[in-house]
C-alpha cells in the first residue's frame, strides 16, 4: 500500500470496473460525494475505507474521493470479476511480473521434488 511517506510505486489496475467513480482529493466531479476518506498509507484505514466502499460497488452514481484511489479501483475490479459484472481479463501465465521469484542470491529450483514423508508404515 502506498502513501505519502512510502517510496513503493503505486499500481494502477489494468482493469477498471463499472460502478462508482473514484478520484483523488482536490479533483472536481459532477456528482455529489458518497465517501470522502483519507488513508495516508495506513493499512487499517484502507481496510475501513474498503468496507465503506463495498456496498457501493455496483452503484454507477456513487463517487468516492480518497488518496487510496488506485487501491480502491483494484478492490472494485476484483469484486466485479468475482461477481460476474465484468469478464476475467485475458492473462499470460508466463508473465513474470505476476509471480513470486527466488530473491537475488538464492538459486531457483523450479518445481522441486515433493517430500511428503510417510509415517506409521504408510508410503505416500
Amino acid at each position, binding site marked *: 500500500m502506498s502513501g505519502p511517506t512510502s517510496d513503493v510505486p503505486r*499500481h494502477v489496475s489494468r482493469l477498471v470496473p463499472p460502478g462508482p467513480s473514484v478520484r483523488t482529493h482536490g479533483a472536481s466531479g459532477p456528482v455529489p460525494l458518497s465517501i470522502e476518506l483519507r488513508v495516508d498509507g495506513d*493499512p487499517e484505514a484502507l*481496510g475501513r475505507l474498503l468496507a465503506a466502499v463495498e456496498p457501493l460497488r455496483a452503484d454507477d452514481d456513487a463517487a468516492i474521493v480518497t488518496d487510496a484511489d488506485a487501491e480502491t479501483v483494484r478492490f472494485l475490479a476484483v469484486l466485479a470479476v468475482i461477481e460476474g459484472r465484468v469478464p476475467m481479463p485475458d*492473462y499470460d501465465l508466463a508473465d513474470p511480473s505476476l509471480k*513470486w521469484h527466488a530473491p537475488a542470491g538464492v538459486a531457483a529450483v523450479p518445481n522441486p521434488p515433493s517430500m*511428503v514423508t510417510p*509415517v506409521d508404515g504408510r508410503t505416500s
Partner: protein
Amino acid sequence: MSEPAPAPAPAPHGQGTVVLPAAQHTFTLEPGRPVVMGIINTNPGSFSDTVHLASLDAQLERAMAFVAQGAGIIDVGTDSGVTYGASIPLEQQVAAAVPLVEALVAEGVPVSIDTPYAVVARATLEAGACMINDVSGLADLAIARLCAAHDAALVILHTRVGHKQEAFLDFPDVVADIEDLFEERTAMAVAAGLARERVVLDPGLGYSKPPSDDVALLRAYDTFIARGLAILTGASRKLYAGVITGAPPTDRLPETIATVAAVRRAPGFVRVHDVGAVRAYLDAAASAEVSRR
C-alpha cells in the same frame, strides 16, 4: 435462603454458525465474521513475508503483534509452498517450529501448523498446536490419525499436485472436482478416526488451478458452505487477483481484502499476512451490516 437463579441457557448459535473443536480450543464460527489467521513462517524458504523473521524472538514478536491486531489463530509455516525452491530438511523444520509453538501456546494463542509432513505434524501437535493445515490435501493419511489422537482440527485443502509443484491443470469442472476431493478426503479422515466436526475445508485458491478456476470456485462458495463444516480461505496476495489488476505479489493488499470480501459469509478462517488491515475491514463491514438492519 433463596434458591440460586438458574444459569442462563446458552444463547443459540445463529443460522449457519459452525462450532469447531480443536484440541484445547473451541471456535464458534459465524457467517460474516471469519476468524483471521495470521501467517508466520519459520524458515527462509518463504519470501512472501516482506521481512524475514530469522530469530525465534522476532517470530514470536510478530505473532503476538498479529494477535494484538485481531488474529484469532496463528498459522506457523515450516516449509513454504513456493514452487521455486527446495524443501527444508524435516529436522530443521521441527527444530524451528516447536519452540515457537510452545511459546505461543504458553501465551494461550491457538496455533495451526501449515505442513504436509506427518513428522512435523506429530512434533508440533505434541508441542500444543490445535490444528494441522495440510496443504497436500491429505496426501499422507497419517496426518489425520495424528489429528485424531490429539483431538486437533485438520484442514483439507484442494489440490491435485504435490507440495511445491506449480501446475495449472485443466479441470473440466473445478467446483465438482473440489467437491469430489472434499467428499473423499473427509471420509478418509473420518475412517482414520477423526471426528467429522474437526474437519476444515479449504477450496485451495491458487493450488493447481488456473486463475479463471480460482474465480469459479469463489463464485461457488455457497456449495462449499452447505457441507456444514468450517471453511478456511487462503486469501493473501493471490495470483488470480494479480491477473485482474496487474499488481505484483508484494503489493496486493486491496486484492487480498477483495478476496476476503468475497468469502466472508463462510463460517471459518481467512489466512492472511496483513492481519490489521483485514481485521479492520471485517470489523467495519460487520458494523455496517448491523447498522443497515
